[in-house]
């Protein structure tokens, strides 16, 4: 579904990604793991079209989208879950949910979102930034599900969440996967990653250092954790 070929990106003089190539098949959940500064978030931003100054190719369903602006990529079915959760302070919770147009064949209705997240329903008319961190994370995920996005780009959705909420995020991603949604996920929590994902890419210094499956990550957990510095 998603194919990245020889992608390089830089911030000014600093090169953050060097010739990264990877693929995500339809219906797969794939994580990007790596130390801080390894280029994981930049890679997601490049896929979304939010990073100026990149070389290489990004393909979606065989179509070259490298030159496409972000809003057109979203309309092809990309769902953006940013690392800061992307809550709008000047929009209510409901407005945060209905801001993006629906882009996929199977969007969640607002009713379904509120049924799945009673806390969002209770606070539906409050400014989104008044929600707790966990609720804002749920809002960010609910928003792309309501869009009906086919490929979710999630930047550390479990960061700073309680174990209970981490489990809820996992349940959501697994449910999305059951409905055929594809997910590319930046994740530091290896335990969580092996629980939801099919495959993993280890990024180091802007390159794909290794591609691993779940059993490999589990058997090398100690080594990986030490490497990641967690």
């Amino acid at each position, binding site marked *: 579904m998603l194919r990245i070929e020889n992608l390089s990106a830089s911030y000014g003089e600093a090169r953050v990604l060097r010739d990264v190539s990877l693929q995500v098949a339809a219906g797969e959940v794939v994580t990007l793991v790596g130390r801080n500064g390894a280029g994981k978030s930049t890679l997601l931003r490049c896929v979304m079209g939010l990073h100026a100054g990149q070389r290489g190719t990004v393909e979606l369903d065989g179509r070259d989208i490298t030159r496409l602006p*972000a*809003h057109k990529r*979203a309309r092809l079915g990309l769902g*953006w879950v*940013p690392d800061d959760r992307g809550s709008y*302070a000047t*929009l209510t919770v409901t407005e945060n949910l209905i*801001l993006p*147009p629906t882009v996929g064949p199977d969007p969640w209705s607002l009713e379904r979102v509120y049924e799945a997240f009673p806390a969002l329903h209770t606070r539906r008319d409050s400014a989104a930034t008044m929600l707790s961190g966990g609720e804002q994370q749920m809002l960010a995920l609910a928003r792309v599900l309501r869009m009906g996005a086919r490929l979710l780009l999630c930047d550390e959705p479990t960061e700073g969440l309680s174990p209970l909420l981490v489990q809820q995020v996992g349940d959501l991603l697994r449910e999305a996967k059951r409905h055929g949604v594809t997910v590319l996920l930046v994740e530091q929590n290896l335990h969580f990653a092996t629980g939801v994902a099919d495959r993993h890419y280890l990024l180091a210094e802007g390159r794909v250092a290794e591609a691993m499956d779940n059993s490999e990550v589990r058997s090398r957990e100690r080594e990986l954790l030490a490497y990641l510095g967690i």
Partner: protein
Amino acid sequence: MSGFAQNTFNGLVSGAFYALLALGLAVIFGMLRVVNFAHGAFYMLGAFGAYVLLTEAGVPFWAALVIMPVGLGLLGMALERAVIHRLTTLDPLYNFLLTFGLTLILQDLVKLRYGVQSSPYATPSLLSGSVNFGLFDFPTYRVFILGFAVLLCVAVWWVLTRTRIGMVVRAATERPDLTRAFGIDVGRWVTPVFGFGIGLAGLAGVLAAPMRAVNPLMGADLIIVVFAVVVIGGLGSIFGSVAAGFGIGLVQAWGEAYLSNFPIVSQTIVFVVMAVVLLWRPAGLFGREEAPA
């Protein structure tokens, strides 16, 4: 007591002009991150346009009230497409140079044709005379301005808070990049929003014509206070700019009435208020610190 009511009323009327101009600056800054130093020139063009339409074509006030905002709004949109949009990637200094340069050009073009002396513009007959509200007589035209400006601010507020267009504008103002990532073509909204802000300035100018001296520099004098208003309200805050507009109108009117023995104080009070507000809240009364993209 009636003196106080009169001063308050007059303060609200000048506040109405500040509010309309600050509102336009706020929506423009919010969407484009451009401070439009030419805003006062468009206010002047609104008033001058109404004057020229009346004296040279016999077009009445009410028609000018529609023609000038729409015409200037379209001119604003053309300017945005031609030059203003280039500013977004440049150093803010160019923002100042371009929009201030536009001011000088527009002012001098008007001067070239009509000179610098002020021209009178008759109050429309429907709004001449005065209204008695008990305490004293209010000039009908000023009552109209106040009512019209309040109505307009409420209408803009309604559009911004209750419609899908308003929601998109708020989202694009707060987080442009994020909003693009949600499938919204933010760029498409930039030109109309700029035109709308300019249209508001033109409208304020038409409203000012019967009340204030119509001359090429009328905008230059006013806009300095309007910038203080925008800074006090919080750059880019819609509500803040309107509230601060009316607030500063009041402060100025009260200052002139009750501190007239201390001209230094009454003439600088707006900027004293601005300095105090900035020390207390650097982002303005209703402003928020810039969020990351």
